[in-house]
Every structure is written in structure tokens, then in C-alpha cells.
């Protein structure tokens, strides 16, 4: 049998569609396709609301995420098995933009860093629960209409990640990955959101997170986030140690009021000294 291109295309479209017959969901359409499965918009007839449903190859991902309750991790409402044996889970339908399509032209640097920090917090939280993301990239981050951030598509064993955001040890299929693979990906994400000509220190932070050798990266995600915070506070960052002159300048900037007052004191003393001599 020879199938034409149009029939082939049609079959690929319809055969993969999940059959929600017998469930409370009414399929609306496909809204995305990730590394682990497709995501569909559906209507929950029971609770009268729209949801997103992800159909998986296996059940692991649902169990992984169901255990993670965090403001930046999409809440899971329900999980089940389709008639064809595939597992699915229903989650909040996030309306917003994927980070890779997020309009960044006018977005100030502080807002870009805020997005990265929200992602980092979610990942750091997951790490405390022993869960790695493994596939962190802008396509897996949603920014809602109110600026809320959601990290999606939590990875499972066997997903190699996306080249640009993939740690070298992940690409080479090294034995055991650890949380530093996510540190690498977060650094790549930071580099992705930064403007064309970013401040030197932010470049250094991203570069440190993306060191080829995991031992040279930040020890964990909170360490990276602390450096971002230091940058925003005008302090020196771990990734980019200041020279003596830069340290002095930074001290002067942060303590300018005190230095001015001390200078005023010395000036007054000098003034009085010379006035007396006149």
C-alpha cells in the first residue's frame, strides 16, 4: 500500500489525538508538542473550566510533578489513562506567552532578571524534593498575563535536553546527572533573556553557570540566584571578582553619604585650621 503525502499527514494528525471518550474532558485541540508528549486544550465538563492536558509516553512525569507544589510549577488537577493505554494529566491552562516568544524589546533588565529568578526558585525547590528538570529552556517557561511565571515539562530519565541549553555531561549521556545540569540550563536561560549588550557581571554569572566542568559551576541554583541578587544590589558577584580599584569604587558608591559626611568633617577642620592662621 502506498500512502500519499496528504493521507500520511492526515493519519499523523488523527492517530495521535487522544480519545477522551468516557472521561470528563472534551478535546478542543492541540496547543503544543514537547519532548515528552503533546499538550491539548480541553474542557472539563465536571468543573466547567478549560484545562490543559498533557498526554505522556509514560506515567512518571505526572507523579513527578504532582509532588511539587510551588507557585511557579503548574498545578496538576487530575491524572488518568486513555483507552489506548497512554497516560495523561490535566493541569491549569496557563494563558500567556512562552518565554521564547515573550516580547523582550522594551522589557527592562530588572524584569528579565525577575523572570530568571522565578524560574530559578522553582527549580531550586524541585531540587530540594530530589527532582531535576533536565530540559529547562525558554520553550518550557510560560509567562502569564500578570507576569506570573510557570516552569513546565519537567523532565524524565532519557530526555537528552535541548542542545543550546543542554549541559555537556547531559549531551554525552554521562552516567548520573545531578542538579548542576539544571544550573547549566538556568545559566543558558539567563543568557537567552539578557539584552544584546549585557552588563559584564551578568555575562560572567551566565558564563560561570555554563562552565563545561560541573565542578566549576555554581554549587547549586540558590548560589546563582544569590549572585543575581548581589548584582542587583550593586555588590560584587562571585562570578566576577572585582579588582582593587573596582572594590574601592563599589565601596565608595554604596557608602557615598558616609564618605561625604566624613569629607565634610575633614573639610571643616581644614577650614578652621586655616582660618585660625589668617
Amino acid at each position, binding site marked *: 500500500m502506498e500512502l500519499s503525502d496528504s493521507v500520511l499527514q492526515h493519519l499523523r494528525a488523527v492517530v495521535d489525538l487522544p480519545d477522551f471518550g468516557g472521561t470528563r474532558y472534551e478535546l478542543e485541540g492541540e496547543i503544543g508538542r514537547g519532548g515528552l508528549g503533546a499538550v491539548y486544550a480541553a474542557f472539563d465538563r465536571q468543573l466547567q473550566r478549560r484545562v490543559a492536558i498533557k498526554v505522556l509516553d509514560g506515567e512518571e512525569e505526572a507523579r513527578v510533578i504532582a509532588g511539587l507544589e510551588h507557585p511557579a510549577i503548574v498545578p496538576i488537577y487530575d491524572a488518568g489513562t486513555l483507552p489506548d493505554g497512554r497516560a495523561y494529566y490535566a493541569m491549569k491552562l496557563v494563558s500567556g506567552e512562552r518565554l521564547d516568544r515573550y516580547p523582550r524589546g522594551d522589557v527592562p533588565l530588572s524584569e528579565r532578571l525577575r523572570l530568571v529568578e522565578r524560574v530559578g526558585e522553582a527549580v531550586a525547590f524541585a531540587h530540594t524534593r530530589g527532582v531535576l528538570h533536565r530540559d529547562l529552556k525558554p520553550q518550557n517557561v510560560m509567562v502569564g498575563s500578570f507576569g506570573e511565571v510557570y516552569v513546565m515539562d519537567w523532565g524524565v530519565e532519557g530526555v537528552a535536553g535541548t542542545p543550546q541549553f543542554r549541559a555537556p555531561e547531559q549531551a554525552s549521556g554521562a552516567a548520573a546527572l545531578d542538579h548542576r545540569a539544571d544550573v547549566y540550563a538556568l545559566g543558558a536561560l539567563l543568557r537567552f533573556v539578557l539584552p544584546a549588550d549585557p552588563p559584564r557581571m551578568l555575562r560572567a554569572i551566565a558564563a560561570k553557570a555554563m562552565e563545561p566542568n560541573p565542578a566549576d559551576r555554581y554549587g547549586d541554583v540558590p548560589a546563582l540566584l544569590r549572585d543575581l541578587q548581589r548584582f542587583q544590589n550593586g555588590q560584587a558577584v562571585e562570578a566576577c571578582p572585582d579588582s582593587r580599584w573596582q572594590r574601592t569604587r563599589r565601596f565608595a558608591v554604596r557608602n557615598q*553619604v558616609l564618605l561625604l*559626611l566624613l569629607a*565634610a*568633617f575633614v573639610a*571643616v577642620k581644614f577650614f*578652621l585650621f586655616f*582660618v*585660625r592662621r589668617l
Partner: protein
Amino acid sequence: MNKIVTGIVFGAVLGFLDGATAWFTPEVRPVIGGILVGSSIKGLLVGLLSGWFARKVNSMKWGIVFASVVGLLFAFGIALMQGNHYLEILLPGFVTGAIIGFLTQRAGAPSKQTV
């Protein structure tokens, strides 16, 4: 260390240092001991009041203004007692007060807040 204690410590130290600069005025060198004590006590009192103010008001600007004014007043009192060296006492007293005000606003633990 709370703000009041911070103020007392900084005030005493800065007052002492302020008094020490009197060494550059040769004619008062014989009585520098008294100057040091007086200046330190003045600084301590300014620091005490600044620290108290800093517990009530969390504002760098007003902290500096308050302490400058208090420092000026104390310096005026001392200058009156001296009857001499008004400028040498008032100006540094004013600036020292400002520095104490800055330090008490920035350093020291704020008062405990009960919910």
C-alpha cells in the same frame, strides 16, 4: 546591639576623635584632656538621643537632620560655657552629629516588632 547602644558607642568614639583634633590648636593643648572628656560625653549624649530617634523613625534624611541639630545644640552649650572658639566647636559638632545620625540609622538592630 540595639540602636541606642550603637548610638552611644559611635557617639563616644566620634566625640573623642572630634576632641582629639583640638591638638591642632596649640593654645588649647594644655587642656586637651578636658576637651577629650567633654567631647566624648557630648558625642555619647548625641549618640544616645540619635539612637532613640532611630528606633522611632526609620529615615536616613531625618536621622541625619535630627542628630545634626542635637549635635549643634550641645556644641552651642559647650561653646557658651567656653565663651570662646564658637566656630571651632559648633561646625565640627554639627558635622559630627550628622555622622552619628547616619550611623545610627544604618547600623544597630531596630526595635523588636511584635505582631
